[in-house]
């Protein structure tokens, strides 16, 4: 580790403050006793946290978000893993085109995607269903799942697989016992990134959500269109706490560094 100079230290401090300040402000405002957005000056109150209970649609939206995020990222990986293995190790006609197609959702603005999906789902009669929302999220998070899986698959030593084959492993055993464990860090990172992407998505989802299947960001977005009160801050604060708890648990049981950096070193 190189020691930081004082200038660098100041820069990093300012940078961290800049990054964290909005989150801190939101969390502070969540504890205001007032009926409007303000920093709590006359003591702290849990009033706005209690209010969440009066809006079951927020809680419902949270579960929808969780489900959509979890399921869409898993489905995306079911396609991303074989795709990544094929792209990483085989030369075939249309390989580049396929790779570009898989990553194309990154290049299209989510507003455009939202309108396109709305039109498509209306035509096919899927509009306003959970399935429609799920399909759109799978497509949007797919590039994230693919990129990290691809990185892991590309960096893998092929001779390890050859060794397994020479020892008598058939294709399925090879995948289950050797290939998958070796690319697992990339797969888990891909899943985490895809989940976060799905959980965060609002621009596109706002076009596709229907009453009862709104995701949390959409619900909040719609809420602040009509109301200006600290309820969204208390909801945000709750989500932040839940996320932090999840990360702590993840770190305890799996190791955060491996999830975020896709390290293949399995520290047992």
């Amino acid at each position, binding site marked *: 580790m190189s020691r930081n100079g004082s200038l660098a230290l100041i820069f990093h401090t300012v940078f961290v403050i800049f990054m964290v300040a909005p989150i801190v402000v939101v969390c502070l405002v969540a504890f205001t006793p007032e009926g409007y957005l303000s920093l709590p000056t006359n003591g702290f109150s849990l009033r706005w946290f209690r209010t969440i209970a009066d809006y079951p649609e927020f809680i419902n939206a949270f579960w929808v978000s969780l489900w959509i995020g979890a399921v869409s990222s898993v489905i995306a990986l079911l396609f991303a893993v074989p795709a990544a293995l094929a792209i990483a190790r085989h030369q075939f006609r249309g390989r580049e085109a396929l790779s570009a197609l898989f990553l194309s959702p990154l290049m299209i603005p989510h507003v455009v995607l939202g309108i396109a999906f709305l039109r498509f789902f209306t035509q096919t009669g899927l509009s306003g269903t959970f399935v429609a929302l799920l399909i759109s999220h799978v497509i949007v998070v797919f590039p994230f799942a693919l990129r990290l899986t691809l990185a892991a698959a590309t960096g893998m030593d092929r*001779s390890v697989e050859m*060794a397994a084959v*020479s*020892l008598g*492993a058939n294709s399925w*055993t090879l995948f289950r016992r050797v290939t998958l464990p070796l690319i697992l860090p990339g797969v888990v990172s891909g899943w985490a990134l895809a989940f976060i992407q799905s959980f965060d998505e609002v621009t596109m989802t706002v076009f596709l959500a229907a009453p009862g299947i709104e995701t949390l960001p959409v619900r909040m977005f719609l809420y602040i269109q009509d109301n200006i009160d600290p309820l969204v801050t208390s909801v945000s604060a709750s989500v932040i706490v839940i996320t932090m708890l999840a990360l702590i648990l993840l770190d305890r049981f799996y190791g955060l560094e491996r999830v975020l950096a896709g390290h293949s070193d399995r520290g047992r």
Partner: protein
Amino acid sequence: MSFLELNGVCKRFGDHVAVEDINLSVTKGEFISLLGPSGCGKTTTLQMIAGFVDPSAGAICLNGRDLGSVKPSKRGLGIVFQSYALFPHMTAAENIAFGLEMRGVPRAERELRVRDALVMVGLDGYADRHPRRMSGGQQQRVALARALVIKPDVLLLDEPLSNLDAKLREDMQIELRQIQRSIGTTTVLVTHDQTEAMALSDRIVVMSKGRIEQIGTPHETYEKPASAFVSQFLGKTNEFPGEVDRHAASPRLVAGSCHWPAPAGVTGPVTVTVRPEKVGFGGETHNGLKARITNRIFQGNHWLFQCETECGPAIVVRQNTGEAQPTEGENVRLVWRAEDMGVRPRGAGR
């Protein structure tokens, strides 16, 4: 009685010919090396035996059975890779047990055989270690145990020692040879290291540009190289231009100021080759090349002399026997026995 046989095996990648017309038969229990510089097709040949690369032409037979339609997973060969290719998420014991598991060996017998294999490579006590917590040499041993525990018909070694440091490599060479001798597994080693090939093999297959240059025992290939390539690739060699003169009273071979009776079969301009350690220093009256010593390098058990002869540069290696050796700048005569000398028509070979 050949056990492993390659008949007219070729491999082309597009226009590039990687391996051309390889014919080789290996007897049971033999240790054979494919030796050559990188890009000579030795690894491709090994991969064709293993089944990871399909030959463009020719057939590979093992124990009388054509391997052409046999999948790599069904060939029953043990392979040790240059990178060891251990399963990083498994312990040493799990790595070794993998092949036995694939063969459906019951757990009790599996554990027994894994333990024996670990003992064989001198790693008892390391069963529960993960590869990343082992040294290169230890990983190498695990890889060897993993390949041998399935009792393969043929053991294929792909540059297995090239990632080890020099000292360890020598130890492993000896150990590898002992293990191979004691269990008698037919072994094919791919290497670019001629000392390794010589130390380990019963026979060496010298390859260049996808073709076999020579097949022979280490001694044969060194002492009687079949081509200029072989003599240059296996150890160092001195080359001088010469001439076979059959018009003189008695036919003779002339190089610089010395001459020998003409060898049979060649005439006209020739290249004379002689190994550095076969060259000695003689006095002015001797039949030898005039030379001046430009450099004298002490290398512990031997001296290395760089000389400028009347026929071009040469090197001489003398054992450090304690005798006085010529000094730098001294004029000497380089002498050697006629039978230690190779003669081939000039321009041939390469």
